[in-house]
């Protein structure tokens, strides 16, 4: 019930200001642009859809940062955090309510990109299984990045700082999954396989299987556990004010 109260306010909050619309439009525009202009969509084959899903999480790093930046830092700035933390609600209910609101906006945006595979289906014959797992992967990656953004937003009262730090964190986390980066990190640590170890924590590594059309439980568990971890950190960041 409390989660629902927070969710409703937070969800509406996205659409009070033009920021959500702007970022949604920019994101959708970018995704379509990338697909139709860079990927030679007239070829309309599965390889093309694969590139589409590979590009998406990179765009998500900035998009989710923009979606999460105001979640907590705005409350801190306005002083409304003091209100939320003194009404009879538990902190985790507020953390979850806010997060779900952001996740809904993310989900809606993702739904709006469905026009791309539909267009592909009109002109060609894509593999719908891969498209579905591709979307599952994109949603899970977005959910994780959003949770990280929510946590970072809870540590600052400056939205721009939250946006920057979240974007950079997201890009770095993704980059850890690039083979070249992994090899460089290995080199840096003098042959120790630190890079390979860190690569496991990169969403990129887990998106790979999903893009190939394989739903592996290990990947799902990776995304869910990392998301929960980020939300726990978010909860700790909120509770820390007390002490």
């Amino acid at each position, binding site marked *: *019930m*409390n989660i629902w*109260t*927070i969710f409703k*306010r937070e969800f509406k*909050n996205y659409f*009070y*200001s033009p920021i959500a619309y702007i970022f949604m439009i920019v994101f959708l525009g970018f995704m379509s642009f990338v697909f139709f202009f860079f990927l030679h969509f007239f070829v309309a084959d599965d390889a093309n859809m694969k590139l589409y899903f590979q590009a998406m999480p990179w765009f998500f790093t900035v998009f989710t940062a923009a979606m999460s930046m105001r979640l907590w830092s705005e409350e801190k700035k*306005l*002083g*409304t*955090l*003091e*209100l*939320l*933390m*003194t*009404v*009879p*609600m*538990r902190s985790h209910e507020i953390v979850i309510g806010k997060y779900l609101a952001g996740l809904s906006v993310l989900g809606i945006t993702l739904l709006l990109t469905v026009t791309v595979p539909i267009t592909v289906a009109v002109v060609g014959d894509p593999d719908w299984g891969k498209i579905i797992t591709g979307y599952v992967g994109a949603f899970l990656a977005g959910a994780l990045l959003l949770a990280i953004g929510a946590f970072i937003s809870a540590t600052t009262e400056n939205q721009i700082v939250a946006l920057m730090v979240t974007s950079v964190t997201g890009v770095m986390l993704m980059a850890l999954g690039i083979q070249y980066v992994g090899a460089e990190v290995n080199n840096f640590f003098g042959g120790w396989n630190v890079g390979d170890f860190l690569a496991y924590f990169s969403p990129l590594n887990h998106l790979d299987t999903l893009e190939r059309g394989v739903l592996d439980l290990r990947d799902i568990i990776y995304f869910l556990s990392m998301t929960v971890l980020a939300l726990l950190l978010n909860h700790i960041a909120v509770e820390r*004010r*007390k*002490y």
Partner: protein
Amino acid sequence: MIDVKTISKRFGATIAVDNVTFGVEKGEILGFLGPNGAGKSTTMKILTTYLVPDEGTATVEGFDIVAQPQHVRACVGYLPESVPLYNEMRVEEYLTFIAQARQIPIAERARRVEAIIDRVGLRAVTKKNCGNLSKGYRQRVGVAQALIHDPPVLVLDEPTSGLDPQQIIEIRDLIRDIGSQKVVVFSTHILQEIEAICKRIIIINQGRIAANGTPAELARKVLGGIRFRGRVQGNADEVRDSLARLDGARDVQVEPRDGTAAFHMVFTKAGDPGLAFGKLAHEKGWPVLEASTELSSLEDVYLAITRTR
């Protein structure tokens, strides 16, 4: 009822609240007075469970602020120092959100929101965005959100700051009106205000309670007495002699003014100096032109306490 036991709170090296103990009963309006940064707001944040004390604890309506924060929150209405408004929300919408957050049943919600809008005088701005309100209305919306669930305990951090005199009087009347059935703790640095509505005052300085009592008690303790002044018709010398003989009178000064005697004295005994004086004037048959306790007493108390440390 609020019962605070030896709470302390540090922020890094600075001690914001240092071993503070006090209690507030139902029907009592407690005024928190002190310079900026003295620890008033921190104490209020602890009482409302926004912060946890490093040492000590407190109970609000019998619930422990550390062990039972949810229960405490349910029975407290809180107006923080910076009024917590969501600028993009309309006033009505905001208050409805608060009603939901306060878990007011759905059937009652609209009625409560309407009632508080009338009570606090927000009818003219219900459709306005909170971000577009004047300072006075913002403050009123803040008071409205603190009162919407009709809490037995009210904690108001500088409810009248930045308001014009007319608005101050309105808020003050509201607090006085509400205060008779509730426990009210409020802070201010306007001395007249605290004198006008508080039954009891706590002066906080550098995190410690420097004084706790009724305005008269504080004046007696800190200044050695309450200042009392007036003007009666009569011979100045005779008035001086009689007043000086009054039990508890000190520093009696009388000067003749147009056939009347204007006097000034410090009254050191417990009790109302007005009563003692009134009896004397009646006995002597003096027509009284003016007589009052001096309002500046509290100011002197405040300055005496906050200056010496």
